[in-house]
């Protein structure tokens, strides 16, 4: 339905430079997809944003763990998390460009977008863990490994999953924005920047379709993997 509306509006305007029709955008996408550079750019952006996202998840969960058990760590980390949440992503990008090369800029920016979300969600999950179940486990002398696997992780999982779901989309948006500003060669962001400079609207739409598709695919794959692992961990041998 939305595709039809898009097609109708695009046809009505009749100027590709303002709004291309879906047919033109997908045709451009097909033309791009047969080039080696297209796949190299996807590989470049995917690996860097994926790396930043993974690092953000790992560090966010670890920081939450230490904050939960040590009040001083929490007091130390809270202002940093608050700052990262409040500072505009463009400020981080420009600041990072002064310090680092643009090649790995999207790793840092994705990491910074994911970190506070994962920290906050994991901490909330740990705080909501049922103390009555902990007491039950201690009375029955359930070994720590079994407690962690079957009780604690099960209670934590919905919070971590929600954090991952939100931060996946953000890491893509912010990662590509960083590439557009930093323009590292052979990245998706570079192609978007070139599309802007040369007023190549069909390419702009084609690359946007690629970004949306990759973001959705990335999110679905990561969440499916998490659900699979959580289900596997829950089954008692």
């Amino acid at each position, binding site marked *: 339905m939305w595709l039809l509306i898009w097609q109708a509006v695009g046809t009505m305007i009749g100027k590709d430079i303002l709004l291309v029709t879906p047919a033109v955008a997908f045709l451009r996408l097909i033309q791009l997809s047969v080039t080696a550079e297209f796949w190299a750019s996807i590989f470049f952006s995917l690996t860097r944003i994926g790396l930043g996202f993974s690092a953000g998840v790992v560090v966010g969960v670890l920081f939450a763990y230490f904050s939960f058990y040590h009040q001083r760590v929490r007091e130390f980390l809270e202002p940093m998390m608050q700052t990262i949440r409040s500072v505009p992503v463009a400020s981080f990008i420009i600041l990072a460009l002064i310090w680092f090369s643009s090649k790995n800029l999207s790793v840092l920016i994705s990491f910074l977008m994911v970190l506070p979300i994962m920290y906050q969600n994991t901490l909330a999950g740990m705080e909501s863990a049922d103390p*009555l*179940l902990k*007491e*039950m486990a201690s*009375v*029955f*002398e*359930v070994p720590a490994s*079994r407690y962690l696997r*079957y*009780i604690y992780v*099960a209670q934590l999982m919905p919070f971590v999953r929600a954090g991952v779901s939100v931060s996946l989309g953000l890491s893509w948006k912010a990662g590509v924005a960083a590439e557009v500003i930093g323009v590292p060669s052979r990245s998706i962001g570079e192609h978007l920047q070139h599309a802007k400079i040369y007023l190549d609207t069909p390419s702009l739409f084609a690359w946007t379709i690629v970004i949306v598709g990759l973001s959705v695919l990335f999110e679905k794959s990561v969440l499916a993997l998490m659900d699979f692992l959580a289900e596997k961990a*829950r089954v*008692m041998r």
Partner: protein
Amino acid sequence: MIRLKNICKSYDGKVVLRDVTMTLQEGKTHVLVAPSGAGKTTLLRILLGLVEPDEGTIEGLTGKRIGVVFQEDRLVEDLSALSNIRLVNRNLTRERVTEELALMGLEGVENQPVREFSGGMKRRVALLRALLSDTDILLLDEPFKGLDEKTKDGVMERTKALCRGKSVLLITHDQQETAAMAEEVFLHPKGFES
């Protein structure tokens, strides 16, 4: 034999237990009957080591493992009935647990997550978890709460069989449960402040 001597406990100046003295015989089922709010659960928490008494001593608990049915079911909602029970005793086989669940009227639901169970079904899983735990002492706080009369008879019969040989303290205020389960009754004993 477990001896409780002159156990006292107060919360914010309000006396809950005053000089409670009682003895639990080895291998017997004892039923403690006292009104609601009289401190029965506090006594149970003291026996579990979750609360320190203000005064008094407990002898005979060292090295003993304790299984418990709390007032709440305290089940892991996402786990199946089978897993909840095997969580506390890894030596239990699936077959044994499935068989025991069926004897408690829970046939064919062993693999369902307990979040899908009714209150009465959850209570039976919590009870069976304690009864099948590898423990010497059982503390059962109103274990038949929420069960309908028809189910309760069968569950009490099976509970009695599984309690054999263990030292049991069952807390209730139900006369039928007391008559069916007790080998020794502490009827409104001294020291419980209601």
